């Protein structure tokens, strides 16, 4: 997304100085997806492609309801269907709306080498700025949730924008607006956390003892959260338990970068001063004596 970006960009990829921080009173937003209310109708998928003018290729039936089977560069949200047995003998059909989690500490933004290709808004939305995207795929390595997809057509990375263009003018995301069962809610992060906890409590009363809010702290919390019937086993619906940015990515994009740059520049500077201090190695040339004699 571009266009609505103003000074409320709070973090910017491949940028070492702070982005404008002054509008600190912007409320953080969040989307809450209540797994227990979802009926798998895919209206959110339709609303997403409508609002964002996306038309994915017609794919193949893979034998289950999942269609498309996974996120793609033109399908930014996908309903995923899971037939699981949380306890032996108790079959459950769980449905999860997959898409970007809008992490408070986004791994994609950390990994991105192109200045300003990934931004985080003051309200918490993480956005890809396509015109700055160079197509390297580092965001894919940075993401703990396997969300970014790179288009075969233009080699740009795409994902859910949380409808930052709608949110920027006071509207809710398209999927939220369209959801017929109220499974997707949108509001301030604080409101969504308390609503999610309330819903978890209700589910617990109805027999789902492990119901809970999925707002993983390993990535600083997320601006897309789930109410899960089995929050103790998020893997049941394909979510990582305690996700965090891979330590490999943190090392690669963290301390290693400044140290290595300092090391390389240091080697050149040290070489120069070595030359000035010690001087070159010269053979004891008979030429020089000749020259001296001549002079």
């Amino acid at each position: 997304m571009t266009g609505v970006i103003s000074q409320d960009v709070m973090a910017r990829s491949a940028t070492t100085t702070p982005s404008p921080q002054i509008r600190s009173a912007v409320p953080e937003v969040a989307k809450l997806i209540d797994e227990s209310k979802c009926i798998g109708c895919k209206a959110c998928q339709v609303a997403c492609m409508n609002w964002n003018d996306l038309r994915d290729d017609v794919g193949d039936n893979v034998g289950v309801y999942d269609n498309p089977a996974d996120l793609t560069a033109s399908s930014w949200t996908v309903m995923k269907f899971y037939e699981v047995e949380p306890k032996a003998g108790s079959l459950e059909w769980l449905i999860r709306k997959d898409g970007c989690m809008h992490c408070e500490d986004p791994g994609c933004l950390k990994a991105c080498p192109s200045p300003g290709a990934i931004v985080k808004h003051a309200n918490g939305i993480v956005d890809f700025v396509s015109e700055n995207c160079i197509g390297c795929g580092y965001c894919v390595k940075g993401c703990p949730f396997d969300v970014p997809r790179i288009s075969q057509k233009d080699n740009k990375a795409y994902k859910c924008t949380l409808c930052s263009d709608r949110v920027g003018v006071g509207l809710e995301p398209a999927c939220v607006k369209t959801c017929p069962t109220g499974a997707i809610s949108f509001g301030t992060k604080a409101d969504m956390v308390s609503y999610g906890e309330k819903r978890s409590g209700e589910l617990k009363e109805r027999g789902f003892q492990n119901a809970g809010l999925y707002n993983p702290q390993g990535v600083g919390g997320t601006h897309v959260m789930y109410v899960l019937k089995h929050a103790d086993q998020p893997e049941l619906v394909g979510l990582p338990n305690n996700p965090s940015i891979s330590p490999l990515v943190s090392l690669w994009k963290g301390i290693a970068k400044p140290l290595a740059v300092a090391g390389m520049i240091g080697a050149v500077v040290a070489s120069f001063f070595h030359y000035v201090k010690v001087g070159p190695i010269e053979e004891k040339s008979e030429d020089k004596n000749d020259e001296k004699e001549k002079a």
Partner: protein
Amino acid sequence: MATKLLQRYNERERMNHWFVVLMFVLAALSGLAFFHPSLFFLTNLFGGGAWARILHPFAGLVMVLSFAGMFIRYWRENVISDSDREWKKHMGEMMRGDKSRMPPVGKYNYGQKLVFWIAALSLAVLLVTGFMFWRPWFAPFFPISLMRVAVLLHSIAAVALIASIIVHVYAAIWVKGTVRAMTRGTVSDEWAKANHPLWREEVNKR
């Protein structure tokens, strides 16, 4: 006037070396652009970020392939032997400007051999890991967890290579009369006597 010159590198060897240099410069500058934000401006040399991303792997691949020619030529002469241990012991003295206790050296001294093997090893790592996240063609065949290892190793190998090349270039500048071995192909007899006496003997025997 002593004008006796010894042939150190023939025409093909020099062409090969400088072609590798050219590819190294392209690959290093485009790669450094992605390594640290302060170096992203280097993408402008290649026509922008996307172009730098597109060109980098090609420059790198051609660099490795052309280095293979040098590897085949020189690996035998770079095998580290017992006599290198003595050289290593006195390396510090040489760095402080005292060359008097350095043992006689053949075609390559221990430092040169080290640069050769670091370059060869890091290029091998760069080649293998580079393929693993070369978009759009090869990256889709590798899982994300493996690509995370690959990008880290790729960066480490790149830094090792660049550091060894900085040493390589400085050594050539530091030891007077060395650069012409790769530009003109010849070195003076005095240079050989002072820096590579065993190699000089060999050449004179031929």
